[in-house]
């Protein structure tokens, strides 16, 4: 066998038929941002534009910070919490998102864990998770199969700079039988950490994901 055929065989072994993909992509496109009339500026103009924007941002930020310091004395306090979705979160519990975005939010204290989802998973199905934590926090997201008592997945989520962000979990294994999975958040930080999470059901990797409400 040639290298070419070896590579074809190796990659085809992990490939899955994706007959739905063109339709999914087309739907995603139709729900996406409409295309804008674009001009292609020369590279020099683009660089000049970037410099102007960055300079304006730095000057604006500096003047805003000076203004805040003048108003509140030496210690400038943040004007807004970066974690608005979790304002009414309770320690040790969770709330559904304030909007209809499907996220559950909450806080975990030191050495604390919170059960976020109890999910019935059918044989061949799997769960996909989006999760994030506040910039200082870090948590483990643990998925346990209550039927067998085994950990299905154990994922560490670092605190992300710049605020709360969602990350997608790939490669969750498929359930080998109809079973119950429990998804928990476990604190690894030395202080209370805020988190948010959303779960989706999927019928096998690559299938359409259905949000869990």
């Amino acid at each position: 066998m040639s290298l070419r055929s070896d590579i074809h065989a190796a990659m085809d072994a992990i490939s899955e038929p994706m007959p739905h993909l063109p339709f999914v992509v087309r739907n995603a496109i139709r729900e996406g941002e409409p295309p804008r009339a674009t001009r292609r500026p020369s590279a020099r103009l683009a660089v000049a534009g970037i410099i102007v924007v960055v300079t304006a941002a730095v000057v604006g930020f500096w003047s805003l910070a000076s203004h805040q310091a003048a108003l509140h004395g030496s210690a400038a306090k943040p004007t807004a919490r970066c974690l608005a979705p979790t304002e009414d979160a309770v320690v040790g519990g969770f709330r559904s998102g304030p909007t209809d975005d499907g996220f559950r939010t909450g806080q975990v204290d030191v050495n604390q864990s919170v059960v976020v989802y109890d999910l019935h998973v059918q044989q061949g199905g799997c769960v996909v998770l989006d999760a994030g934590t506040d910039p200082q926090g870090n948590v483990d997201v643990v998925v346990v199969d209550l039927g067998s008592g085994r950990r299905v997945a154990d994922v560490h989520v670092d605190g992300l700079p710049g605020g709360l962000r969602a990350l997608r979990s790939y490669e969750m294994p498929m359930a080998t039988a109809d079973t119950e999975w429990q998804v928990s958040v476990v604190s690894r930080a030395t202080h209370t950490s805020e988190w948010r999470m959303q779960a989706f059901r999927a019928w096998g990797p690559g299938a359409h994901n259905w949000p869990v409400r």
Partner: protein
Amino acid sequence: MDVIAADPRAVADDFEHRLEDLIPPAYRLALGMLQDASAAEDAVQEAALCAWQKASRLRPGSDPLPWFLAIVANQCRSTRRLRWWSVLKIEPPAAPVPAVEDRAVRGADLRRELLKLSRTDRLVVILYFYLDMPLEDVARIAGLSLAGARGRLYRAIRKLRSGLELEEALR
């Protein structure tokens, strides 16, 4: 000097119509780069949305495939940066049937070797060997000169098949 593109909506509509032909090679490229079917699917979706929004930059009458594959390659690079990429798989893989075991092991070894290549080398190998693209298109998609693409391909072949003659490997 500014270049005013064609009517963006018309170009985007045209691009949408061509998607059916573009998606299979895009998926194969993403699969080769990421080696995960669902991640590859997500990368293709993201890339398609990105390409559709930028479709007005495509020259009328030009082949959209190399341009689209370059966007897919960039999307794959972003995907691999995500922290959750490395979710642990706890369930052991099913035991392979003995008759196909050798082939399965060889395939797994080769995929592992491909992942060890640098991103650009892997891109060149996947485009050339898995998507069967000519080296000129490979160079264009990877943003390399023809000589640069050829050099990377030869170097990758030596890493993947150290004992193989280049002419034999390039078949």
